[in-house]
């Protein structure tokens, strides 16, 4: 045990010589989180122009509806409306300054009163089908509200909703938890590389290979230290999430550490294979870090996995992140115990054991060959 502690301390001293690598788990996830916060955290209302040519009063009521209908996404109106004349509106549309233009015709009120099916023209961008879809289905919300405002006969089918929590969880917290898990993984990966970096450039791998004792003594302190730094990075992100968005796992924090730690161990196992090989060392580092970032995107980093289970591709399930992310969100965002806790834990332990066993075996064999 004393030997392990000495090795642990010497590994820590190695790390202290290259402390910039400690930000490996902080810097890329921070920048990714800032970028997504700017992208999805601000006002997501569609910028449109409304040209109200109506000679009656209903056009103005419709115009008001745009400001009154609130989207659950960030609790802002679906549309950010700019009132323009037709010429300006179409020019703004042509130059992509607005996403769409609604034109309320002069006879809108009169045709509505006389029951002659009034038309509204809606010009919109469809350069991507997702935004085009939003234009089409947002318009239904506006018209629904407008009908109610003008006192149309009630709809044959009313709508009601039930949400399980008093406050709806926004999209950004969902992404932020994904980033926290990414941070644990990247923190561990970068730090295992930091711990093998000096070994590589000083050609100490030869000495490792000739070591009389099991190489586990060398590898275990590295793994533990990398894991600790990964968890520190992830916890840092949880604190950021708490201060910024108000979410905190509370008494479930140990469960967060357990799930994210097991996930990180999988990546450490992979990284250590390349980390202690003298050939293609950096190529391995680059490949694994980029893979972890790709897995963030394809493994539920940006959205809930459970709902999209059928859309999640088979290769995403080959990584523990995909299995861990929603239970972690349960703990952090909903402060509820994951219903699939046991099965998730078993899977993550399996991933971690497999990766560490294979990783350490290959590494040991390679080092012995070099020796």
């Amino acid at each position, binding site marked *: 045990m004393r030997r392990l502690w000495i090795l642990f301390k010497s590994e820590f001293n190695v790390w202290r010589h290259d402390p910039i690598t400690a930000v490996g788990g902080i810097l890329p996830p921070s920048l990714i989180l800032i970028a997504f916060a700017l992208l999805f955290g601000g006002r997501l209302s569609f910028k449109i122009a409304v040209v109200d040519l109506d000679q009656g009063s209903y056009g103005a009521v419709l115009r008001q509806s745009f400001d009154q209908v609130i989207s659950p996404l960030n609790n802002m109106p679906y549309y950010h409306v700019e009132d323009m004349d037709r010429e300006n509106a179409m020019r703004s549309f042509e130059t992509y300054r607005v996403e769409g233009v609604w034109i309320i015709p002069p006879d809108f009120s009169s045709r509505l009163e006389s029951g002659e099916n009034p038309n509204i023209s809606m*010009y919109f*961008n469809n350069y991507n089908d997702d935004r085009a879809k939003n234009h089409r289905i947002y318009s239904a919300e506006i018209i629904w509200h407008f009908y109610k405002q003008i006192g149309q006969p009630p709809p044959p089918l009313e709508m009601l909703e039930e949400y399980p929590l008093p406050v709806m969880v926004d999209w950004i917290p969902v992404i932020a938890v994904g980033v926290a898990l990414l941070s644990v993984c990247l923190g561990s990966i970068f730090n295992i590389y930091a711990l093998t970096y000096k070994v590589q450039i000083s050609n100490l791998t030869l000495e490792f290979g000739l070591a009389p004792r099991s190489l586990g003594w060398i590898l275990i302190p590295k793994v533990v230290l990398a894991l600790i730094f990964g968890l520190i990075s992830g916890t840092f992100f949880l604190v950021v999430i708490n201060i910024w968005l108000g979410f905190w796992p509370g008494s479930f924090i140990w469960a967060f550490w357990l799930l994210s730690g097991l996930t990180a161990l999988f990546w450490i196992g992979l990284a250590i294979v390349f980390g202690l090989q003298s050939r293609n060392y950096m190529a391995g580092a680059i490949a694994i870090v980029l893979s972890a970032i790709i897995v963030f995107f394809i493994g539920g980093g940006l959205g809930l996995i459970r709902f999209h*289970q059928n859309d999640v591709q088979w290769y995403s399930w080959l990584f523990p992140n995909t299995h861990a992310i929603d239970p972690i969100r349960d703990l952090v965002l909903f402060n509820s115990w994951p219903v699939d806790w046991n099965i998730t834990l078993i899977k993550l332990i399996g991933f971690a054991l497999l990766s560490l066993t294979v990783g350490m075996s290959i590494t040991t064999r390679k080092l012995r060959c070099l020796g």
Partner: protein
Amino acid sequence: MKRFGLLLLSEFKLFRTTIPVHIIGIFQPALMFSLMALVLVTPTFDMHVVHPITPLGTELVLEMEKVCSPIGDNYISPILVDPVASREIPGGQLISVETVDGTSIALQRYGLIDSNMVKNFRNRLTSAALSIWNKSLMGHSITIVQYPRLSRDIPYSVYFGMAMLPLAAFLAAALIGAFSTAQEFEFNTIIEYRLSPISMILIMGVRLVRLSLIGLLSAFVLMLVVGIFAGGWPSSLAWAALILLVMALLGGCLGTLAGLVLQSTLPAFLIGLALAFFTWILGSAFGLAAGFSGAYEAVSRWIPNTYAVELLFPLYYGVNIGSSQPAILFLATACTILVLATMFTYRRKILLRQR
């Protein structure tokens, strides 16, 4: 010129020392697109509905099937379920048509999902319910006449792939630039540069040309993948190459700068990687900057990817986004500043260090 050619040849021969890094830098963005394109949002949502037992419930399901783009996909795929099995539904979303005090109600229940998902479910149900209401209103209903800009809804993957092209060019050049430069310090081969009688401009010029061409190659590989998998091709390959070459040059400059300043491969790689993804997300990666919040648009105006995407857009969609002059001006200015900064740093870190 001959000397430049020989130096360039020598630079490209350095490829042999780091083949795996080059392979990763060149092919990783294409791999990332291939994997991500399959999990991108699709307009069609599965929506679970309890087996209808009333005519209105049946009508709702029929209307749900009709909520669609007239020039694209359906937006709802209704899945009829038994109330007993409804507890097993992923995400917990379920619609049941009930009668309360004589009023028919479509009650939509959600599980622990986020507001974006709620929005998507709500809008789709409203669209279907509005169709029923419109029928009941007959002549007093409103028709929205749609004028989409393009003749068909373009799949999101085309835009996503197009917006990844600047990332591909930037990432490959930045990573390889950072790695190659930092490695010179680690292996102490930097001494050769210090002792070289050749001008700094020639040495750095050749390095940046090499990095730019590698970045361009990475972007071409991605372009090929986007074309094959998503069906989007640029109308002018030469113009697209020019735009991407500029992005690759920017990436090459930043990567080389990181290598010169940090002189260590791992931190230099970290900086190159973080910058590449940061500028990608902020540079209109998921939609044109003008379509998002004011803060996002304001920040993205300082990111070169935004301008590269705006210049690539007409090549993929056949429509211009305003004047291209500001974009060209920004990219030219950014290139000039970064090339000068790289030269300056090279001079400080390498040439002046020996004296």
